[in-house]
């Protein structure tokens, strides 16, 4: 009898029901070995539902989680190349916050219905997905959230930015779960000062959180396909992400 190796996964495109009952595309990766597992919603960055984001999804599945990334641009650009879809979404004014929360809620329902789901849910995202992660964790009950260099949580956005991208610091009292924050000290969106402001507000509200800011790293330091990649920060960041989810999504 052969057993299924713990790193065996199935990764594929599925359709889920998102905000407003809309059926949208999502990329899902799940471990094949039997067991009770937590689920993670990966919120893709502004450049879209791209190959690198799908790689992150598979990474977390190999780490043991049912993981799914909804295509936030499906409505504007069904079936388009990720870069074309991101351009179309940008030209259309970006993703409204309410729709984002609805799409993630749909992804959460999908994860909870998977065989072996233990009911625990994590959310994670980079860049605009970092802000979206904080938004989701302040808008619905989840069990763990990871904000990787999300901007415009604290600071006002420059003029001309989509109106949907407003600060959400006032939502911090509603945070429903522990928050892990990973930032680069050389970033300017968010600046170390903005990170410190968010940190202080979380502390003031008595919210469980741990922030780590890396020296010599700026925005996008997890992106292996970009010049901003910083191996030391990314390797340590991944270690912290896996530890954090192992602690909060077990059971």
């Amino acid at each position, binding site marked *: 009898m052969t057993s299924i190796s713990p790193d065996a996964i199935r990764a594929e495109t599925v359709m889920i029901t998102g905000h407003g009952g809309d059926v949208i595309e999502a990329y899902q990766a799940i471990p094949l070995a039997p067991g009770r597992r937590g689920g993670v919603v990966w919120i893709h*960055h*502004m*450049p879209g539902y791209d190959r690198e984001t799908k790689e992150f999804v598979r990474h977390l599945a190999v780490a043991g989680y049912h993981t799914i990334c909804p295509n936030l641009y499906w409505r*504007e*650009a069904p079936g*388009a*190349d990720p*870069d*074309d*879809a991101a*351009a*179309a979404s*940008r*030209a*259309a004014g*970006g993703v409204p916050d309410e729709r984002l929360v609805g799409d993630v809620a749909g992804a959460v329902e999908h994860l909870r219905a998977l065989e072996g789901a233990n009911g625990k849910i994590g959310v994670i995202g980079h*860049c*605009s997905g970092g802000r979206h992660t904080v938004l989701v964790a302040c808008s619905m009950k989840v069990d763990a959230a990871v904000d990787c260099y999300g*901007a*415009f949580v604290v600071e006002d*956005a*420059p*003029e*001309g*930015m*989509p109106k949907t*991208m407003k600060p959400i610091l006032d939502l911090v009292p509603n945070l429903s779960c522990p928050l892990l924050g990973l930032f680069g000290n*050389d*970033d*300017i*969106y968010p600046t170390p000062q903005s990170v410190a402001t968010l940190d202080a507000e979380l502390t003031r509200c008595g919210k469980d959180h741990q922030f780590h800011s890396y020296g010599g790293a*700026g*925005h*996008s330091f997890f992106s292996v396909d*970009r*010049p*901003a990649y910083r191996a030391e920060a990314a390797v340590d960041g991944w270690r912290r992400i896996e530890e954090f989810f192992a602690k909060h999504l077990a059971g």
Partner: protein
Amino acid sequence: MMCTYLTEKIAVEGSGKGATGWFSATEATVYVDHPVHAPYGHTVNVDVLSPALGASARVALELTEETALALADAIRRAVASAPTGIASRDQ
């Protein structure tokens, strides 16, 4: 560094050639953000689009700021050196 999110958007009259051939363009966006292909952290990105024809009706540029500004200057010089109005919508 950053995602700027800031997007300049203008209406467009004319045509562009994208991955699926020529199309009539209706708008263009200009923004500084991460490129998909150019080997830089950030570039000036220009998309000429026709949303009604779908997301693939798109001509995309990812330029360094020096190049983008030189392109803008070159466009102004080319227009200035031609007879006034010859390429206008009211030609």
